[in-house]
């Protein structure tokens, strides 16, 4: 009797141990692999953003030294190229990482809409007239005698209120100018806006050049700070990949892509424009490049989930990704997520440029709405995957 009892008790205990909450060792190892591969991808992505921005700076230097049609076009090309890696880095937002913690440079790098009138001349109606038409920083040497990085940073905190006058879109504005067309085609700023001689158009060509240079240098500084945080010895990377942080880091990875998918991309960037049919309610409104922003954002989500990233030079990083973890926990959910990832990526790629024409009429509107719905579903699906690991994520809340 006693022997049976004790044997049963021992078996029960063993069974209980088998079913307790501690993780299978292979999942813990896998999580670490996934987090480390993510850090590798983030570093590579920000490095690409930095390097392409350096090329942009070179082309801008050329434009300013020798203003010409060719040099302006080259600078624009370089800007478009620089946006390709940056758009993918937006998957690393929304969890207070180096990009958007309390002093993160996200706003300074990519905020929108730009206060155009604040920076440079704009087309306006002369109703009311007066001397105050088109007062702006470039056109106001009395109040803004020196244009440099410090001025631009201080404008960003003007009166405790963020005023958007820096970053990618400020550079875009200074290269393309306002998009005044009702049809397709971006801005058409003449290169002569940078001719520092009697043929200067629209005044203050030297100051315009200074502004362009200052915002570009500021952009590089901000990107550099991100590269420094995520390089192999970087302080954030060290923290992020430490053993104590693995679960938190995994949660952050999921938060970033969940919120980018539903709240930011599907919601803020695509739905609002589709809903309001607002002219130029698109992030890259001067260059009409918003369709690429959308595709790159979607790619960023794909990169993080699959643990892969194709660098600007064509080399591919391919390692452990969230998909591997979800597959271990819930293979059906993983299949569903991959399905949505692929279909949403295809849907955004089907959106025809330019975005601000596409949302005006059919069949463009349906193409956009299809992508919006898939990205929203993807966000929800990522929230489900998060729940598998015990995290709660609200993908709408950005």
């Amino acid at each position, binding site marked *: 009797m006693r022997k049976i009892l004790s044997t049963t008790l021992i078996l029960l205990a063993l069974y209980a141990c088998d079913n307790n909450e501690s993780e299978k060792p292979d999942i813990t190892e896998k999580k670490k692999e996934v987090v480390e591969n993510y850090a590798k991808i983030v570093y590579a992505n920000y490095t690409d953003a930095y390097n392409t921005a350096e090329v942009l700076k070179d082309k801008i230097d050329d434009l300013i030294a020798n203003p010409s049609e060719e040099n302006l076009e080259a600078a624009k090309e370089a800007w478009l190229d620089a946006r390709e890696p940056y758009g993918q880095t937006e998957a690393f937002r929304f969890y207070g990482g180096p990009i958007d913690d309390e002093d993160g440079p996200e706003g300074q790098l990519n*905020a929108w*809409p*730009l*206060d*155009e*009138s*604040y920076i440079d001349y*704009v*087309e*306006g*109606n002369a*109703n*009311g*007239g*007066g*001397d*105050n*038409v088109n*007062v*702006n*920083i470039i056109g*106001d040497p009395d109040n803004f005698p020196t244009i440099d990085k410090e001025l631009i940073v201080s404008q960003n905190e003007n*009166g*405790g*209120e*963020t*005023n*958007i006058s820096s970053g990618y879109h400020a550079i875009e504005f200074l290269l393309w100018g*306002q*998009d*005044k067309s009702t049809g397709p085609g971006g*801005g058409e700023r003449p290169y002569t806006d940078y001719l520092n001689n009697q043929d200067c158009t629209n005044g203050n060509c030297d100051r315009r050049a200074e502004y362009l240079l200052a915002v570009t240098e500021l952009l590089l500084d901000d990107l550099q700070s991100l590269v420094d945080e995520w390089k192999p010895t970087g302080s954030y990377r060290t923290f992020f990949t430490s053993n104590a942080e693995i679960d938190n880091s995994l949660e952050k990875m999921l938060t970033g892509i969940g919120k980018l998918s539903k709240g930011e991309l599907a*919601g*803020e960037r695509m*739905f*609002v424009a589709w*809903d*309001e049919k*607002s*002219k*130029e*309610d698109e992030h890259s*409104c*001067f260059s009409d490049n918003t369709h690429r922003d959308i595709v790159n954002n979607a790619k960023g989500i794909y990169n993080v989930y699959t643990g892969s990233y194709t660098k600007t030079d064509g080399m591919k990083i391919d390692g452990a990704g969230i998909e591997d973890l979800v597959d271990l926990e819930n293979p059906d959910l993983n299949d569903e997520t991959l399905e949505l990832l692929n279909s949403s990526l295809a849907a955004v790629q089907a959106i025809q440029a330019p975005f601000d024409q596409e949302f005006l009429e059919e069949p463009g509107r349906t193409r956009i709405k299809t992508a919006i719905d898939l990205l929203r579903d993807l966000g929800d699906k990522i929230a489900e995957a998060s729940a598998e690991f015990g995290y709660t994520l*609200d993908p*709408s*809340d950005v």
Partner: protein
Amino acid sequence: MKIDTRFQIIILTALLFALTVGLISCEDHNESFSWLEKGEEFPAGLATVNDQSVNAFGNPAPNLTGDKDLIFVTGNSFFNRNWVTAPSSTEDLDGLGPMFIARSCSSCHFKDGKGSPPLEGEQPVSLLFRLSTSGTSDNGAPVPEPVYGGQFANNAILGVAPEGKVKVSYTEMAGKFADGESYSLRKPTYEFTELNYGDMDPATMVSPRIAQHMIGLGFLEAVDDQTLLDMEDPNDVNEDGISGRVNRVWNFEKNEAEIGRFGWKANQPTLRQQVAGAFNGDIGMTSSVFPSEDCTSAQQDCQNAISGGSPELKESILKKVVLYSSTLAVPKRRGWDDDDVLRGKQLFFEAKCEACHAPKLITGNHPDFPEFSGVLIRPFTDLLLHDMGEGLADSRPDYEATGNEWRTPPLWGIGLIETVNGHTNFLHDGRARNLKEAILWHGGEAQSAKESFVNMNKKDRESLIKFLNSL
């Protein structure tokens, strides 16, 4: 074996006995009074959301029907966006200023939360200043100061001089609780400096108003006028010391008087007018509700500045921001059934705080939101004006509200202000640095309630605060 069986029977009998006694005790408990009410942790019924994070105020009501949750997304977007100087490529977003105090709704209502007074040396952003001179307009509204208009603008677009700067200073006033513990309250004084348009009329009346948190507003709008009228007692007929009354204000679209309920002195009758008023006065955006800028004849640059369209704020966008503002969910309470919290609730009733901070209201019919109609809500406000005493007075009448009167603000969500907005500044100008100070500023009709608080022992005071923080 026999011993084992007998032993088992004894054990079983003992268990059965304990169980019976236990059940009887439970029944006994049910007969004694508890301050706990079923469902009180859901202050807005099905529109309550379980969120205690920094985003606690930013969720749409979970029970929204139709496509309102999508409209919420668009409304949210425009609530957060910066408006820019006209003219701009982004035509729907231009029209900022020429005079303004903030560039976006969210800069004052950060995370749909509560503003706070400026730090030393900073200009206020989420604290606005209403200006008026003596008399009332034909529709009962205050008369704007002739040069500076109806609201002070300490910011402006390039090329237009802002009206000036605001200097805030405080005087500390010491006091003691009945048990000897001391406290200090800070009384603010406001000075307008570096005025750009000449002297301000010396008889100008000034009212500082801080940005309020924005949860459950659609519910407050759904409360029937009659419900408010039933609660008012302007002549204190029942002699309980409380004389709450409605404010009759002007509806600019209907061109008629209506009962007000939004704003620190209940000076706005509808959320639509409140939102449009804020766009106009705080950001400088004209709309179909308020088609003119607040530029006086003395402010030529302001008048000459380029407009962002007629109106600057598109009707469809205004509508969506109004929907957004109406449908923000109320967060679930925390620790509502805690013993200390329930003790605090008891004290709240014993001190008669509930005479103005009405714990329960039933909404009427909201034409736009059936989800908010006929619901029991727990906002802890009667939405009425009350004389709060000399200490809190701004001495500036606002429609029928006197210089001493303030609308009872809703208390739902106040326990989360610290999490959402990182501060605990309360009352109309953020002078109270915590809830204790907020209570201590109560005077006038609330004098005896305040005295009850002063006379409580420390443990009771802490329980009352705990109750308030659970809201």
